[in-house]
């Protein structure tokens, strides 16, 4: 779909191009094994979400910028359980009429300020035992501050709605990113 190697209907998933791919490679307990309902925030051009939709169940892909969303639509067209939405992840009411409640997982990879805030606002979609799989990009919050300080304040905000299960730096694949797995409080 984006020039990745394929064989016998399998597609190589490059952990260096995908934050979620990196989280899998580092052994995060993502709770994803196949067939789950997924809400994907920050789908961009659909690179990662196309992999997700290939093994998960119904997958809602939210992206705000029109240019990448054009590619997302192309990725979604042949995948009949992938639903592309041109929406701002900061205002969930604009897509709550489409995305169903109690999804099994929220995957979030948005590169705006207030990444923790976005996760908190979207907690309403997640089932009680669902998982939030979040990649926090330190540079999107504050380019000047130390990444550790940025991660700490983001985690503090997250704890208001979530219980944090696991955190680990993704530096092997993505510099200054923190991978987070959490579940609703």
């Amino acid at each position, binding site marked *: 779909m984006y020039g990745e190697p394929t064989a016998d209907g399998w597609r190589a998933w490059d952990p260096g191009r995908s934050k979620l791919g990196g989280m899998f490679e580092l052994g995060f307990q993502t709770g994803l094994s196949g067939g789950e309902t997924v809400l994907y925030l920050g789908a961009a051009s659909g690179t990662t979400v196309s992999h997700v939709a290939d093994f998960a169940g119904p997958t809602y892909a939210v992206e705000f910028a029109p240019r990448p969303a054009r590619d997302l639509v192309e990725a979604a067209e042949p995948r009949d359980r992938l639903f592309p939405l041109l929406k701002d992840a900061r205002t969930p009411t604009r897509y709550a009429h489409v995305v169903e409640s*109690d999804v099994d997982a929220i995957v979030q990879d948005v590169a705006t300020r207030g990444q923790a805030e976005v996760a908190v606002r979207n907690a309403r979609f997640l089932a009680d035992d669902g998982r939030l799989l979040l990649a926090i990009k330190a540079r999107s919050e504050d380019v000047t501050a130390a990444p550790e300080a940025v991660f700490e304040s983001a985690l503090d905000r997250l704890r208001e709605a979530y219980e944090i299960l696991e955190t680990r730096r993704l530096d092997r694949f993505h510099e200054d990113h923190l991978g987070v797995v959490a579940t609703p409080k």
Partner: protein
Amino acid sequence: MTDTDDSAGWFAGGTSASAEAAGDESALRARIADGEADAPRDWPHLAVESGFADSRADYYDRLHEASVAATREAVRERERADDKQLVHAVRAMDDCERTANELAERAAEWAGSLFDEAEPGIEGARAVAEREPDGELERRAVSLSARVADLAAERDALAETIDRIAPAVAPNLAEMAGPELAARLIALAGGLESLAKKPSGTVQVLGAEDALFAHLSGRAPSPKHGIIYTHEYVRNTRPEDRGSASRALAGKLTLAARVDHYSGERRETLHAELRERMATIRARAEEGKDDDRSGGDADAEGDV
């Protein structure tokens, strides 16, 4: 068939697959694009219950079809709102305004010779356009006034359009400069890309080309500001600090244009930095002479 219920899904008002009509599909796409709900619900279940879909699988099939179509349409629409369109809109707005004012003068002069109470300007033309004409000459004068009123209305409609599309074309620039000034800067530079490639010193004097060339040929001092003079940060700063204010504003506007062109994402730090810088510049007025009252409320934040 507009459904404003806050707890309804995108398929509310849609008919079952078997009774599907062409108009129905476009209404569903519009619901996906523009609808809202306070909270998510078990939409697949509700859709089957309400008879919109025969089964969960059928529901997902219809959602796939509608969401792909709706998003493709929304993307196309957002991409069509490009900088060239914005340039056309702002130039057309200026032409409408200039022509309306010019014609209004002529119409007022004419109407003044025919009717007793003819006011000058666009408002006067609107009043004359309402009159019941008597005879051929009056009919022509009233008709001319009606054109003026129409042109003025077109100008207002163009301004509204600019307010709406400028934030889509250049979110940071439009937020910092306001939609109209953002559109003018883009028009003066000849596009968002060329604006993004201009140095901040050029952006500062965009629209002041006459003064700039007078300066370059040694006849005048260098201009402090061009079209950005219309910005509140420049206009409402006391004259001796306007040079600093327009330099600071132009610097951030240039960065905003670059972010808009190369990334397209909103960048809050940019706006915060400009607010801070302006507070510092305006605080000077307080420190210096106390008789200067141009400071305004920004000064309150200035003494941190």
